[in-house]
């Protein structure tokens, strides 16, 4: 692939991440299924660290993951983010370690790490959509 095509995708995925990322931020605040719109709700005083509610409480996060629409939003966000992040890392690393051989090593190493992150994240989304284990 030509460098200009890769960087075109970098800009494109960047803009898509901005769109889907805003949904992701709204998801844990305004659009959360939780009745109390706060990240963490604890029982009693602040000394007792037991989570009893909030948008990050298990049931509400689970409810988000069970929805097909939110699941696809998260999966798409993950796809764009993984490309954007690891292409960005490739740019940064190839500027620290210039050279044809180093470029090759960086590219292959980052493709492997990117695939691991992508598969690990997709596993969460897909399995949670189907009701977990």
């Amino acid at each position, binding site marked *: 692939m030509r460098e200009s095509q890769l960087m075109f995708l970098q800009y494109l995925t960047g803009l898509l991440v*901005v769109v889907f990322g805003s949904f992701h*931020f709204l998801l844990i605040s305004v659009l959360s299924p939780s009745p109390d*719109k706060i990240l963490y709700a604890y029982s009693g005083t602040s000394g007792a660290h*037991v989570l009893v509610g909030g948008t990050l409480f*298990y049931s509400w996060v689970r409810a988000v993951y069970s929805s097909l629409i939110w699941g696809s939003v998260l999966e798409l966000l993950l796809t764009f983010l993984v490309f954007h*992040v690891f292409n960005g890392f490739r740019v*940064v690393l190839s500027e620290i370690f210039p050279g044809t051989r180093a470029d090759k090593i960086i590219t292959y190493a980052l493709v492997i790490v990117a695939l691991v*992150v992508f598969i690990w994240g997709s596993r*969460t989304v897909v399995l*949670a959509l189907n009701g977990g284990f």
Partner: protein
Amino acid sequence: MTIENKKGWIFWFNPFKYGTDRWMYALHRLTGIVLGLYLMAHVWETSNILNGPVTWNKIMVDLDYPFGVHYGPYILSAILIAASYHALNGIRLTIVENGLLLPKPYRPEFPYKPKSLKGLNNVLKLAVAIFMLVICGIGIVFIFTGAIV
């Protein structure tokens, strides 16, 4: 024997003596690296949803109270600031790095101040700052109090 005299990658994060674009470049790169590393941690963290309510809630509390202190909101605020900066400045860079909203080639005149770093580019920088203030203001209030403005 000549010596290389390279400034090295540490110079990326040394924006002093140059203009605002140089500062924004350093911050863009810094926030990009931080957010990329955060993504990997975040993918691991959210994968715990499959491990049942007890594990999930325990991890949420542990991340909210790392080392027994209530650092969670500060960490989230830092991520929000980094993400909003990287996103908004990324939109600006998408515009100007593709040659849009930049001046046409002009004839340089004495004090030789570059026009590409001024004009509409400066307007975009101002827009980045204003939107960042709005988004971070709303977001940080939510993170700390749960109130949606």
